[in-house]
């Protein structure tokens, strides 16, 4: 592939390819920032346009659109608590609290630069690993999927450090229960569908997230005065984008680890982007010296999910290009478009058409670069949203949320789900239940259940323990939980010695025993 690096680059920068890249990125940004619309929709809409284009321009346009989606989604998540796609939910955890403090620009800067550098990281790894990718993809089967889902679920323990255990557990179990709605993927039996065809496929994750975060925030704003950034001393100058860029280098360890997690998990088809960003976020909490700051506006909590989100998109090309196996829905649509363009993803692509692979990698990097520059440029202005009166912003957020939920599939059921979860999320906020705990099981529940059954059917229960990778992940998960709980206890006894009986400790008391 080495000898093609320059010719492919030349083709890549030959007019009109850069123009199509730009068009792709702009369309992608627009679709990404609006909830409900995302990669699958933008690619499906662009595909018919590519029929008459030359393949290089078409690839560049499609990849450009794809590469703009994650960061655009994060912008809405950070600034409006509006996660339009499942993977961007982790960006709300610390991104939105930063906006509340009047530091939206800081968060956007960190998010954009983290996204850009991790995409480059992912692209480099993708280039190096493609020749060996086959072995990686073949090594992960049902037991490994189960363990990854378990790792995602265990992040609840890490993220809930020092918070009410009882409330955390209640929220997690509610989430797990909701994730089991719909037909059992193994036996075909339907559960909790109440005779509704909509519930047959279970609760759709995106409207649930829109409800939990954006709708509940909209309701909350309705009875508040002032603006999002409120009376914060920083509200007057909402810039800090540059500081945000610097923060990535100050938290370089978190950035590199998150990119590595994203790259690794992105390569495994079927794991899903949402778990990846959650695991990266949990990792940031776990390794931080100040875990108590997370959820209240810690910049590492913005950098981590962003890095994982973009690097996973790059490495997601490994299974797609080598096996033609889509790592997520977006990739499924892209694979369809590529085959129409006469590019056959598959084991032979590296031998028959390596130039096209390089083209994809270039477009990925350049698309992320343009997206990041645009985000940094408009980020400062977008943060001014935080200055609008909540009385005005609340109905706008509610309207965007509801239209977004509808836009996903044009299904009224999704709108009802968004509204119901909006009320649920509002209640959670009111009574101090952690929303993250309901989100994580909602996202991993189905994968966990399915892969558990599949392991039992194909390998028996020993399958979990006899396969080395599965066993290693299990040991890591147990170790993480063990050390987190031990730390928790240490923190607690220390607090009690000092006599600091804060409200949360009182609530923790009985359940922690």
């Amino acid at each position: 592939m080495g000898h093609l690096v320059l010719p492919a680059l030349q083709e890549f920068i030959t007019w009109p390819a850069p123009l199509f890249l730009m068009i792709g990125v702009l369309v992608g940004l627009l679709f990404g920032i609006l909830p409900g619309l995302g990669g699958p929709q933008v690619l499906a809409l662009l595909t018919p346009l590519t029929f008459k284009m030359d393949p290089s321009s078409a690839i560049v346009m499609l990849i450009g659109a794809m590469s703009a989606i994650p960061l655009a989604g994060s912008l809405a998540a950070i600034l409006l608590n509006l996660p339009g796609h499942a993977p961007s939910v982790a960006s709300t955890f610390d991104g939105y609290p930063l906006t509340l403090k009047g530091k939206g620009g800081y968060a956007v800067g960190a998010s954009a630069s983290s996204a850009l550098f991790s995409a480059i990281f992912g692209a480099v790894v993708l280039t190096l690993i493609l020749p060996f990718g086959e072995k990686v993809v073949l090594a992960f089967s049902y037991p490994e999927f189960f363990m990854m889902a378990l790792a995602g679920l265990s992040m609840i323990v890490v993220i809930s450090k020092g918070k009410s255990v009882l409330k955390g557990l209640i929220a997690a179990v509610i989430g797990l229960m909701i994730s089991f709605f719909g037909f059992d993927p193994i036996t075909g039996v339907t559960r909790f569908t109440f005779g509704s065809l909509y519930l047959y496929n279970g609760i759709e994750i995106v409207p649930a997230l829109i409800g939990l975060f954006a709708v509940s925030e909209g309701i909350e704003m309705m009875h508040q005065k002032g603006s999002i950034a409120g009376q914060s001393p920083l509200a007057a100058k909402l810039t800090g984008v540059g500081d945000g860029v610097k923060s990535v280098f100050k938290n370089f360890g978190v950035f590199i680890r998150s990119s590595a997690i994203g790259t690794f998990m992105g390569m495994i088809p079927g794991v899903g982007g949402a778990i990846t960003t959650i695991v990266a976020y949990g990792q940031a909490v776990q390794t931080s010296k100040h875990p108590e700051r997370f959820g209240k506006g810690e910049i590492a909590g913005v950098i981590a999910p962003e890095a994982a989100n973009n690097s996973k998109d790059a490495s997601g090309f490994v299974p797609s290009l080598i096996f033609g196996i889509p790592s997520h829905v977006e990739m499924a649509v892209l694979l369809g478009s590529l085959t129409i363009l006469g590019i056959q993803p598959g084991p032979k692509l590296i031998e028959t058409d390596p130039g096209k692979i390089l083209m994809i990698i270039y477009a990925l990097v350049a698309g992320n670069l343009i997206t990041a520059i645009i985000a940094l440029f408009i980020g400062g202005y977008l943060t001014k949203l935080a200055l609008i009166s909540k009385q005005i912003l609340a109905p706008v957020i509610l309207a965007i949320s509801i239209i977004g939920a509808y836009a996903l599939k044009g299904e009224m059921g999704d709108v009802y789900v968004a509204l119901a979860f909006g009320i649920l999320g509002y209640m959670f906020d009111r009574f101090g239940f952690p929303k993250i705990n309901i989100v994580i099981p909602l996202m991993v529940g189905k994968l966990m259940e399915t892969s558990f059954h599949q392991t039992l059917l194909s390998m028996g229960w020993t399958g979990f323990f006899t396969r080395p990778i599965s066993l290693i992940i299990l040991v890591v998960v147990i170790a993480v939980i063990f050390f987190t709980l031990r730390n928790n206890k240490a923190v607690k006894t220390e607090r009690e010695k000092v006599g600091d009986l804060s409200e949360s400790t009182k609530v923790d008391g009985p359940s922690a025993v």
Partner: protein
Amino acid sequence: MFSFHYNNSRKGNNFSIREKTILKAYSNFYDDKGEKRLKSMRSKRSLLKMVCAAIGITAILSGCGAAKTTNSANGASDGFPKQTITFVVPYAPGGDFDTTARILAPYLSQYLPNKPSVIVKNIPGGNSQVGAENVLHAKPDGYTIGYFTLPGLALGPLIGQGEYDLTKVEWIGQVFNLPYVAAANKKASLKDIDSLKAFPKLRMGTTGITTSAGLGSFIASNELGINPTFVPSGGSSESVLAASQGSVDFVQFPYPAMRQQLDAKLIKPLWVYSKERLKYLPDVPTIGEMGHPELANLINLVGAVGTTPGVSKEHLQVLRDALKKAMEDPKFLDKMNKEYHSPEYLNADDTLKEVKDDIQSLKKYADPIKSTIKK
């Protein structure tokens, strides 16, 4: 409470009447620094405009997929079609049905009178039942057409899942008929039906039993007399990957879903469910050669286009003619074949006949499938 100075003519305070009105309206929210507020509000307003534009764009984009089909003259052939035709795909984007619909849409448009837009709308859910119900209950004007999945959809009513009647659909024609390929993990010592029967603890990768592929696996194992453990997954690509890894031993899916793994020799083909050998797998025997020719018609994946019951004869004829012409266009066929989508045209009557045949031959499997689900 609010001292209002907009009448004084200090430099730089030339607010427009509209702004003054806004200033007045907002006087309840803001304190006595009205002028300063208004200045900052100018920028806030432009932001607000942006936000409103965003809402508008979302609304428009989400509306794209759901073009309204009002004021159509039902029953009259005069000038049909006058507006956008919605082509319902009962699955999420990506996959055989979505891709072929997107290839077909522009050709349909080209061969319809007035060349209306043909828009693909994905309505996934319930093993393609949600999309089918949408077409069945649309306004019977011919502006909503859709893909129907066979034989999967034929099973639903037989086992009490779904109350639609496929024989009532106004068929426009069949677009593709994908043959299934049976394949085994390269290391498993499987080569024919007998070796499958003899294989200890045979694991068969499949999808849910009510999907076309799951149904095919069930029928095949029944008719061939093999007794595997079914290991279902959410989609064909997951199952085929499992077969490449050796997590399952045996799978059967439409050729496009397995092509890459077959090319890479991670799985080896055993036989194909078609009447003749496939031109891209010339060395692989047909199921007929293995002694079960009746399965060639039963185990396949068919995409047929139909519309709402009650559409007028004239409108139906227009749609049927357009599909026929599109299916004869060599450029369309070339695009379909490039992706191994096995285009195979059947006219409306033959499609209906095939639907009836499917329902008839599936009847005997209804009870065993029901009891499998209950377990």
